[in-house]
């Protein structure tokens, strides 16, 4: 009992330390640069308390919940030896977690507004909605393909840097062909696809796979799935821009 309380205390202190830089920056800019008083100090403090508690819970939950289930699934699928189910799982995980991602929905709606304003699609609401939906499906499809590609890489042991560099080359080539309005959105869409719950699970999947296949190193082969998930959306969104406009 005392031991677990002590562990909780340590975790809380750790979360506070994680949060300290943000607090220092905000207070410094507010007081020293903008020279204004801090509004609602009580609300600020209760909010910070919630953030610290939340971070502690989250990390604890990762260690006992998300990491173990991700890894045990990866082990079980690897042991089953069925390539089909492994690929199906990888695709479902990438597609399923991305298509409902709130950040992506926000970006897609914004992109539809941009496209309508630029005259690339009609200004009517239906056209904007279908454009935004198409964009969301495109990004989700691209993340699904990315996880599949990453899993195949772990299985075959392909070197990651050639694939990433190849992806970069594709992005650069596509940039010169894609309509100008879509470029900023395409570049940003790479960053919004990986949510806080997807990242630990995908990481656990990669590391679990790499450690259950002989000849693979969890460090050099297990990581890299997220890198694919943030690269392919750029390419797919630019393709979408070229096709839809």
């Amino acid at each position, binding site marked *: 009992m005392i031991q677990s309380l002590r562990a909780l205390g340590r975790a809380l202190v750790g979360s506070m330390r*994680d949060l300290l*830089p*943000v607090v220092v*920056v905000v207070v410094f*800019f*507010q007081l020293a640069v*903008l020279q204004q008083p801090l*509004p609602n100090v009580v609300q*600020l403090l*209760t*909010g910070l*308390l*919630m*953030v*610290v*508690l*939340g*971070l502690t*819970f989250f*990390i604890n*939950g*990762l*260690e*006992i*919940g*998300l990491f173990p*289930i991700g890894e*045990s*699934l990866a082990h*079980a699928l690897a042991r089953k030896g069925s390539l089909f*189910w492994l690929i199906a*799982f990888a695709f479902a995980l990438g597609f*399923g977690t991305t298509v*409902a991602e709130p950040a992506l929905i926000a970006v897609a709606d914004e992109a539809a507004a941009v496209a309508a304003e630029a005259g690339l699609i009609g200004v009517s609401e239906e056209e904007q909605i279908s454009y935004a939906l198409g964009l969301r499906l495109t990004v989700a499809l691209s993340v699904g393909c990315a996880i599949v590609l990453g899993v195949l890489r772990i299985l075959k042991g392909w070197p*990651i*840097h050639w694939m*990433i*560099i190849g992806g970069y080359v594709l992005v*650069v080539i596509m940039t010169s062909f894609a309509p*100008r309005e879509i470029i900023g959105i395409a*570049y*940003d869409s*790479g*960053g919004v696809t*990986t*949510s*806080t*719950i997807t*990242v*630990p*699970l995908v*990481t*656990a999947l990669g*590391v679990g796979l790499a450690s259950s296949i002989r000849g693979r190193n*969890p460090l*050099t082969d297990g*990581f*890299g799935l*997220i890198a694919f998930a*943030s690269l392919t959306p750029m390419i797919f969104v630019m393709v979408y821009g070229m096709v839809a406009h």
Partner: protein
Amino acid sequence: MLWNEVWQTLLGTLRDVLPIVAIVGGFQLLVIRRPVANLRRVLVGIVYVVVGLALFLIGLEQALFPLGRLMATQLTDPAFIYAGLEQAAGAFHWSDYYWVYAFAAAMGFSTTIAEPSLLAVALKAQKVSGGAIGMWGLRIAVAIGVAVGVSLGTYRIVTGLPLHYFIIAAYIVVVTQTAFAPRLIIPLAYDSGGVTTSTVTVPLIAALGLGLAETVPGRNVLIDGFGLIAFACLFPIMSVMAYAQISEYRARRQRAGSGE
């Protein structure tokens, strides 16, 4: 009012988790067809993750986001930037925005340290590498990358230079570094680009970018407002590889020194 928000955030987090639980549960039941080891513990862990993330987001929305967004608009406000200057508001110099660059760097750094998904990857990396890749080393390296990236991104918005020049130049640096960096770090470095930008960093950085594009004369919100996130994704790749290169270099020097 507050309860409403708590409820909404909890629902939102649940909606985030639902597809994952459905997919994992579906595969476990239909394909693996074996019970999960420590099922209760895993379920408790998932509840912790949902509750923790919801608390985290509500707390941010209560404490830091309103203030951060307000500061972003105040710092980009021409009244603040031209307060001490006597020139006409049409002819500005990019260096007039020095507080914006400083704020972008400081915010980029500090929010990255508090980013939960980076924490998750750093935890895993430390465990997998047997402690060779320290949690703090990795997180500070990523945070420096985000700080530089976001700061440079605000500079780009102020000057209006085209986004893709920067991105392509950054790609060239990343590719060159890949050739020289220790092989162990490369997948992790590529990954750290994607994990930096989720719950904490994006809302504040997006507010800063849109605020800038709105107030800087001659900028278009739609064309210039985007792109900060792309910067925040690319620069950590470089800084993490640089971190590995520096520690390798120091280890080699130490070895050479002790060999004499």
